[in-house]
């Protein structure tokens, strides 16, 4: 078998096994639809968190505006499919998959384009100042989403965007996650990835080694935001409703917490933390008695603080699952 076929098989196999298994379990009613939806949400969150890990964990750019890019992707993708359904109705069903894929990619592209525009001036700032500038950008985007209906009525503004086709299913979510993992794994172990890590470790030294630091910072930032955009598109077509409050700066903190909990520059940690985060949050909804449901958000920060006190470098430190390691160590 030629090597490229082997590589394709390596990527398709986990996708097929995972999504097949989940489809089977849900078809047999072993998993109820609620948990299937939560699983998809976890995949979406993981894609977005992997993007932020690329930005903050690998390149060391402190970004507090991730949810804004997630939102841009979500609104772009949702608008495109909505326009398509509006123009052709539901009749051209055979093409909707392709349209959905196209709008997801367009969402990612829109987020990347915006990241590039925002990044070119702001990435000259350092550490905390970059964080504040991106945080400010997040708040500005939230305000724009709130007022979006004044320039494009389909976006709904502060009332929220409705009428989005429900497209995201298990295969889409799993495929997105597998693709994100593969792309990011291969990226961080490439020469590009090494340049990004070098910038994180010491920008001056990286520049001295001939790395165009500013260019690579923009590349890292743009690429990470593109993942947020794709994740946003998946989210929009999972819940079929978008509201600006889903994309405010507090949601950027959520993603940041996931990345830091998992460990900066650690893909295993991000994956595990994303799933743990989503399932914990939703699991507590079921596990806690109804009168204590408000305790959810009391317990989570406590858990977060304790985890940070016990493991300040993240859950996994520098250990990775074997398939996420560099080829040299695999």
């Amino acid at each position, binding site marked *: 078998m030629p090597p490229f076929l082997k590589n394709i098989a390596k990527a398709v196999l986990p996708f097929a096994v995972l999504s097949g298994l989940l489809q089977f379990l849900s078809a047999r009613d072993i998993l109820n639809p609620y948990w299937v939806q939560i699983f998809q949400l976890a995949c979406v969150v993981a894609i977005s968190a992997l993007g932020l890990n690329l930005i903050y964990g690998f390149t060391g750019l402190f970004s507090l505006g991730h949810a804004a890019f997630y939102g841009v992707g979500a609104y772009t993708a949702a608008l495109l499919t909505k326009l398509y359904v509006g123009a052709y109705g539901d009749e051209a069903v055979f093409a909707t998959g392709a349209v959905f894929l196209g709008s997801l990619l367009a969402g990612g592209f829109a987020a990347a384009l915006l990241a590039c525009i925002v990044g070119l001036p702001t990435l000259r700032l350092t550490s905390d100042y970059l964080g504040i500038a991106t945080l400010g950008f997040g708040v500005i985007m939230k305000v724009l989403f709130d007022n979006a209906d004044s320039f494009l009525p389909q976006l709904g503004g502060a009332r929220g965007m409705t009428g989005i086709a429900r497209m995201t299913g298990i295969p889409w979510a799993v495929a997105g996650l597998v693709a994100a993992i593969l792309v990011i794994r291969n990226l961080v172990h490439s020469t590009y990835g090494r340049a990004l890590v070098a910038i994180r470790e010491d920008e001056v030294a990286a520049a001295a080694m001939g790395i165009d630091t500013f260019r690579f910072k923009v590349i890292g930032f743009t690429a990470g935001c593109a993942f947020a955009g794709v994740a946003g598109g998946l989210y929009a077509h999972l819940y079929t409703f978008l509201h600006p409050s889903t994309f405010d700066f507090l949601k950027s903190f959520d993603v940041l917490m996931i990345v830091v909990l998992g460990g900066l520059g650690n893909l295993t940690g991000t994956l595990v933390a994303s799933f743990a985060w989503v399932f914990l949050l939703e699991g507590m909804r079921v596990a806690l008695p109804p009168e204590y449901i408000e305790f959810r958000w009391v317990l989570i920060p*406590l858990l977060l603080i304790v985890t940070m006190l016990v493991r300040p470098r993240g859950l996994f430190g520098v250990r990775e699952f074997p398939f996420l390691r560099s080829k040299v160590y695999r």
Partner: protein
Amino acid sequence: MYALIALGYTMVYGIVRLINFAHGDVFMVGAFLAFYSVEKYHLPLPAVFAISAGGAAFLAVVIERMAYRPLRNAPKIASLITAIGVSLFLEYFTALHQVFGPNYYAFPRPFGVVTMEIGGITFTNIQGIILVATLASLGVLQYVVHRTKVGRGMRAVSHDGVTAGLMGVNANAVISFTFGLGAALAGVGGVLYGIAYPQINTFMGVMPGLKAFTAAVLGGIGSIPGAVLGALIMGQSETMTTAYLSSTYRDGIAFVLLIAVLLWKPTGILGKARTEKV
């Protein structure tokens, strides 16, 4: 008003380089303490200020001891995440029915609103009190930082914590004191907020906290006059946006301003540039 909260941010950041996200929630606790002391116990205004400032300071010192001190030598991001965690915890814990409860509460006005006019500027007595309290706190702060022994310690730790420790400054005590002082100002801010906008709930600290922090960065973080200057600019620009554009854009304009200033002067208006040593 923003100035009082911004001062706390800028002091803490100046000393331990930590964005203390829980600061806005300390402000909220201050407002609630004032609410209870007015509503339930009908205390006079000076006592209300003292309780809020003292309670907020106590809370901040406890937070610092429990959550931030163990992480002082860990990567900076760990304390930042802890700060976010503390912030969320305070918001949702106090929103429980057993604590303050999740509703909006009407803050009782301790006195009537009187409109005055001096030299063509119209203002209410509440705005007057806020202005006086802000200026008074700023004066006290300048005195503490530049004229007292603790203040000298604060400046020394801010400059270089380890060396200050070697020179006999008790860095931990100084840092605790800074947290307490900043929180006391936030507590005063909380009372003033309650008087000015008579509606409080446990999430009220989020947006003022964020904007106060922005104001601190705008003015140059770590600089006390900068925080006040930044807060004044922020307050003015928000009022202008509400008046001339639309109130829906109000939250955005402050940050547009912030990004513009950061691009022009990356360390804020009155901030000092730090050169990176190799």
